[in-house]
């Protein structure tokens, strides 16, 4: 029984059924299982493949399953990368006529994809239950991902296929049989690593391990990740053996699930990209609103909201902040002088009517509260523009559990010139989250009562 404690290391994950590496140096290295089972493969006759004989429990998995290979020398000569089972039952990934070909249940090819040009590649074959299945004929979704390391290009091929027959014979890597027949190595190829997982592994995870790891994010957001799911089979011990007391597991998970539906408010990629001119400051366009927000010359209103970028959204009971992103282009169509622009993303507790205009305010019952995030910059840039705001702001929630989100803009914020300044807005994002710097997150139910 494996005893290794699970860590973030690629070889220590509970789903790893076999992990061998350093195969470019020698197949004896590749056969050594550095995963949790520590059960090595056998080096085949002629030392041109590795295999597990009749792998009844550990590798005899059809769905979900991910088999990932690091190829350090690619060959387009006909050969086999891995083969599970005898001729009539096999699953197989091979090179055939300069294509990668994935076959199930014998020789039926379900995916055929050209071998890319790069001499170094990562091959991932992922099988998982088809979320859109209509029955036995399309019960499984298979995805072949080919990453050309040399040229940094990923290609992806997906197919739905029937439930496969579970092979029982040898699982052979780098050949079709344990005697080395149709060996990938004999054809001129070289395999650095093999990783066999008992779950669907997305390519992002493969990339984190084998291509390049992203940097640690900076965050103030409260995060609740799901714990180990109840029916998850790690392959070690009984299902759910390591949850602890069931009720303990449930209690811990409750804290997570209450947050799960928290997502975006405005998630707008705007189709109508109107250009807003500086001259509109003095125009009588009814849809604009002058805010009481001086900038530049004292007392001159600068920031103005526009109905084109205004909306109402219900707020998740646990959210206290918004993450705001806007994609804008600000430019000077007269000359190349840089001018200062400003943007604010507002959250109001109600429609921000202040009594201006022809009609009386329609909503007088609730005092207006608002918060905003602001960004100012100098610019004269080309299309399509830039992500200009990546900031957070508190959510102001009204009596009906809703917030009103608006984008305000300011041309020529510092009164630097009279050129024809223009802005276009292409995207507005506001994502709900709980900012831990603003207080203790609610641990109770939807009312957010503190524990």
């Amino acid at each position, binding site marked *: 029984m494996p005893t290794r404690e699970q860590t*973030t290391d690629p070889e220590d994950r509970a789903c790893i059924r076999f992990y061998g590496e350093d195969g470019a140096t020698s197949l004896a290295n590749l056969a050594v299982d550095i995963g949790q089972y520590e059960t090595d493969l056998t080096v085949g006759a002629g030392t041109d493949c590795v295999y597990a004989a009749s792998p009844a429990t550990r590798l005899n998995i059809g769905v979900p399953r991910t088999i990932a290979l690091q190829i350090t020398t690619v060959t387009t000569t006909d050969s086999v990368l891995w083969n599970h089972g005898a001729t009539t039952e096999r699953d197989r990934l091979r090179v055939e006529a300069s294509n990668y070909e994935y076959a199930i249940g014998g020789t039926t090819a379900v995916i055929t994809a050209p071998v890319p040009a790069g001499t170094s590649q990562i091959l991932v074959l992922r099988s998982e239950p088809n979320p859109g299945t209509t029955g036995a004929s399309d019960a499984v979704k298979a995805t072949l991902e080919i990453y050309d390391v040399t040229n940094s290009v990923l290609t992806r091929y997906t197919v739905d296929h029937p439930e496969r027959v579970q092979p029982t014979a040898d699982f052979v890597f780098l050949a079709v049989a344990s005697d080395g027949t149709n060996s990938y190595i004999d054809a001129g190829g070289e395999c650095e690593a093999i990783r066999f997982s008992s779950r669907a592994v997305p390519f992002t995870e493969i990339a984190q391990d084998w291509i390049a790891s992203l940097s640690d994010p900076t965050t103030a957001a409260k995060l609740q990740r799901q714990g180990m799911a109840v029916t998850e089979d790690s392959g070690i011990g009984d299902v759910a053996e390591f949850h602890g007391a069931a009720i303990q597991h449930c209690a811990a998970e409750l804290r997570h*699930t209450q947050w799960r539906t928290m997502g975006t408010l405005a998630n707008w990629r705007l189709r109508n990209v109107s250009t807003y001119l500086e001259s509109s400051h003095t125009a009588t366009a009814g849809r604009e609103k002058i805010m009481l927000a001086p900038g530049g010359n004292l007392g001159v209103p600068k920031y103005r909201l526009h109905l084109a970028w205004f909306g109402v959204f219900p707020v998740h009971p646990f959210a206290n902040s918004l993450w705001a992103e806007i994609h804008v282009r600000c430019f000077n169509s007269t000359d190349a002088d840089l001018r200062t622009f400003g943007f604010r993303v507002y959250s109001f507790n109600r429609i921000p009517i202040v009594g201006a205009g022809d009609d009386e305010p329609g909503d007088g019952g609730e005092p207006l509260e608002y918060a905003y995030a602001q960004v100012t910059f100098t610019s004269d840039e080309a299309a399509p523009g830039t992500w200009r705001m990546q900031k957070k702001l508190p959510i102001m929630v009204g009596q009906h559990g809703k917030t009103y989100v608006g984008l305000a803009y300011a041309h020529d914020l510092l009164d630097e010139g009279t050129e024809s300044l223009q802005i276009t807005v292409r995207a507005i994002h506001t994502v709900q989250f709980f900012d831990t710097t603003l207080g203790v997150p609610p641990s109770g139910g939807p009312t957010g009562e503190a524990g």
Partner: protein
Amino acid sequence: MPAEYPRVIVPDEPKTASVVAVAPNSTLRLDPNRKVWRAQDSQTCSHRVLAEYHLDGSNSWPVPTGTVDPTTADAYPELNTWRTVAVHHARLTPGCVLSMHCIYCPAGLTQLNAGGIIGWISKGAWAHLRATVTWTNGASSVTTEHTISMEGSLKGDWGGAENTAASSDWSSLKEQTIALMVPTDFDTDPATAVLYSEWTEVEIELEVRGGERIVHAIVHEVPYVHWQDHDDAGLLTVHGAATGNLDKPRMPQTKARDGATFDDNRKGTRRALQAMQRQGERLGPRILQWAANSHATTAWSIGDQSPLGVSGSATALRNAFDTSLSGYNEAHPGWIVAGSMAQLHRLNGEMFMRGRAAVVPVRVIVDCARTTTSSTLRLQSSAFEWIDITIPASRDEVVAYGYLASQVYGDQFRGILLPLCTVPNDGTVASLYNISVDFWG
């Protein structure tokens, strides 16, 4: 209590779950197991927006400003024509139903062709917003309609004129809400209530009629009530253990207890675990909904959505909104995948990706069409994660499943989602009408 939550599901106990991170010298209170089960009855606190219609960046509404005499020209929306502005799909969070909210300015004129020498006449200034919701669970389906009437503008020589003074549209903004939209007989027939409490799919079609000046209209979830049969052994997202000592009947039973043969599956540790698993699989954020509306000033005369068209080129992937932009680049404008709160164990970003990346499983439904030659829409949210949709020759809703890269945290610039198209350079045009992207655990 806000009027829009007439029967909001509020937990009484426990205030905290049994397993918590405890700071030194903290006071602890130990709760019995049944409190965990009760807490599982109260998971449905979703307020996700599932459908919306808005100005979409437009500087004007499609309806004319009201300066044309309605008896002299065909200038205003025809009286009885409904125009579809969005069709969105979603799987409802269990125990939730829908609500609609609309912000708008007073409507413009409508017209009718009276025929003969009379010709076009004004039929007044007004507008309607209608949500047609098709609720589906398995083979069962029911359709309901919900309409908001919007008053007309009193301005102008013929009524219906738009404001002209600075800021005056803002001061004439109106709001209306339909607090509760439920399937037919949901409140009166327990069997219907059971049917649509779990696994319900909704199609929401938003239509407008008359001289609408809508700023933003949304259809969103509200927690309501989760009905279940007490002898249902299926995999539900609630534990359903609540009996007695409750402030309100959150888990209605569909029949009376029946003695020695009584089979109640709503209790017990196993059920608690199952409910937790189902919650993990089904509860997640709405990723996005998008609908093609041009907001051109003649859009009303088209009478329907105007699709986003992508004309052909070489085989390059080009941005559907702006074909001068090629390939995936997170610096380009797009949507965002905000799935940080729905990171599943099997894709766990903390354990498997060191807390530096995250992916969420999604279902994509794209309403699209193309002429001539096969074309593809790729929804891509990172260098490595995308979902391809083959655009059909005849307009259809194409369903696809896959993974999208997401924010790891809610305050992170990550997961920019771009719609990229490959359209052959043989005169082919691809048309996009509606997109719904759902979390799909």
